[in-house]
């Protein structure tokens, strides 16, 4: 019986971990290039979920298909936010930039509250109730699609960074800022693109999650802090590390829920966070910025 519980914990932990990984990849990319920890990441995800909701409710567009709209839309929104709010302050002290994104998060979350009020909304496409069993472990189809979509998106991101010129420029700026500038890379543009990609990633994650979650102004909070944990675990700036870190955190959380009483699973996640911060701040896989 306990073996079944553990198997279930592993399966559902990995499924959710994929989504955590996608959310964190965007955050990690932004950190690698802009050196800021974006507190508004979850808020952008929330806005994307509202967008998915409106597209579904008003135009009947399937949430997964709507990614074609939501992804690019939030890429653009991300670029605008970067240009307007963050770029003008790029020489500000690190902690001030952190506070900037905190202010942005407070603003966006409460803007949603003011505009659409606190009541909850659901998106429920016809296949949302589908599921199957692997051994004794339940696999819910929407969660499987979300995990799969997250992996695909992460791989696409990886390919983009490896194969395209813009991608290479982003990596260069992330790994070797001074060298990159000397090579004549348009730093301002790359920074905006990187932030846009971060926003686009988390927007896709939001769309993927909407069919099995709910939509409300505070929904980003469920993923925001976890994303930080994953990014630190994977190594800040190491986007592949972020995806792997997502699986690890999802797994840890799920095992925590199985083995610990009450709602202590959160303690496992934060405990892991503190341990990594103290003992391996460059991340489990290295490659991240140290301290």
């Amino acid at each position, binding site marked *: 019986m306990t073996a079944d519980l553990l198997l279930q914990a592993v399966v559902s932990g990995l499924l959710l971990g994929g989504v955590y990984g996608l959310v964190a990849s965007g955050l990690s990319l932004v950190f690698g290039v802009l050196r800021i920890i974006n507190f508004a990441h979850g808020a952008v995800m929330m806005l994307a979920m509202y967008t998915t909701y409106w597209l579904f409710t008003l135009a009947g567009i399937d949430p997964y298909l709507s990614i074609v709209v939501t992804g690019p839309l939030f890429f653009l929104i991300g670029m605008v936010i970067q240009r307007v709010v963050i770029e003008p302050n790029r020489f500000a002290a690190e902690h001030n930039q952190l506070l900037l994104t*905190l202010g942005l998060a407070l603003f966006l979350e409460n803007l949603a509250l003011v505009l659409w009020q606190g009541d909850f909304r659901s998106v429920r496409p016809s296949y949302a109730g589908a599921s199957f069993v692997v051994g004794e472990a339940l696999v819910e189809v929407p969660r499987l699609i979300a995990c799969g979509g997250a992996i695909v998106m992460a791989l696409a991101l990886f390919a983009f960074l490896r194969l395209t010129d813009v991608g290479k420029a982003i990596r260069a700026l992330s790994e070797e800022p001074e060298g990159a500038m000397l090579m004549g890379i348009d730093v301002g543009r790359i920074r905006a693109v990187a932030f846009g990609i971060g926003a686009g990633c988390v927007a896709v994650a939001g769309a993927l999650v909407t069919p099995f979650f709910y939509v409300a102004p505070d929904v980003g909070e469920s993923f925001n*802090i976890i994303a930080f944990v994953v990014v630190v675990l994977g190594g800040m700036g190491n986007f592949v590390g972020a995806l792997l870190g997502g699986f690890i955190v999802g797994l840890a959380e799920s095992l925590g829920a199985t083995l610990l009483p009450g709602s*202590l699973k959160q303690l496992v996640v934060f405990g892991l966070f503190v341990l990594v*911060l103290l003992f391996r701040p460059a991340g489990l896989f290295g490659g991240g910025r140290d301290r």
Partner: protein
Amino acid sequence: MTGEVLAGLALGLLLVAPPFLPPYFLEILISVMLFGYLGAAWNILGGYAGQFSFGHAAYFGIGAYTSTLLFLRLGVSPWLGMLAGGVLAAAFGLAAGYLSFRYGLRGPYFSLVTLAFAEMLRVIAVNTKAVGSSLGLVIPNREPAPVNFVFAGKLSYYYVILAMAVGAVWITRRVARSKLGYSLLAIRENEDAAEASGVDALGMKLRAMAISSFLTALGGTFYAQYFAYIDPTITFGPSVSIQGLLQAIVGGAGTVLGPVVGAFVLTPMSELSRAAIRGRAGVDVMLYGIVLILVISFLPRGILGSLRRRP
């Protein structure tokens, strides 16, 4: 110096005017003083030492729960409990600080680890029946008993928090002008250089942490006694952490009066916005967000910090 004269006048007004204020304004003033106090406590570590804690709620909560539990379970006067809470919080702060600083956590990494510590305490409180879990703790007997930190009217509470705020400002001033203060300034500007020139960065930062966490905990006890109810979210939640640092940032981190000025700007602003746009939850926090963005963008040293730059 005009600054000091203004401050003196303001203090005079704060001492004399409140008995004549309508109850609603007195309430707002108490909120202002409490937030200003918390901001000043945060400022010692955040503004002066440059270590931005996002988890000061941890100390606030330790203070609130310690004094309340001692009072409810053992009948210890909250005045003593307040001190006990402060010492406990300082101990926790030193432990957390030592771990973080010793392992070289700086900047955003330090901020994140403090956030994690506060959240961990919250989750533990929620899951611990002995401290009431999510039902929290109520201080039931409201019979006025000054020896037990229970007063008949709001005015008495006001003067207590006013005294605490003045005390925090005075401590800030003393620290700023002391060797500790100069060391912290050096550390804030460039920790490695400071270390190289012989400053014991770890020791100095820990001192700042101890003072900051001790003071914050006292604020927690005040809150518990004034509102007579605490729970894990109110005390350990992110709201308290954010409120504390907001006052200092907006008013001027690293200045003596910054947090108090920040409180006088932010609290009425949120009250007015809430009254102006009735029935719409979230307007006040939305404005906090905008103010924070604007302040960081245009007044990165806060109101007082920017004023100082004038020739």
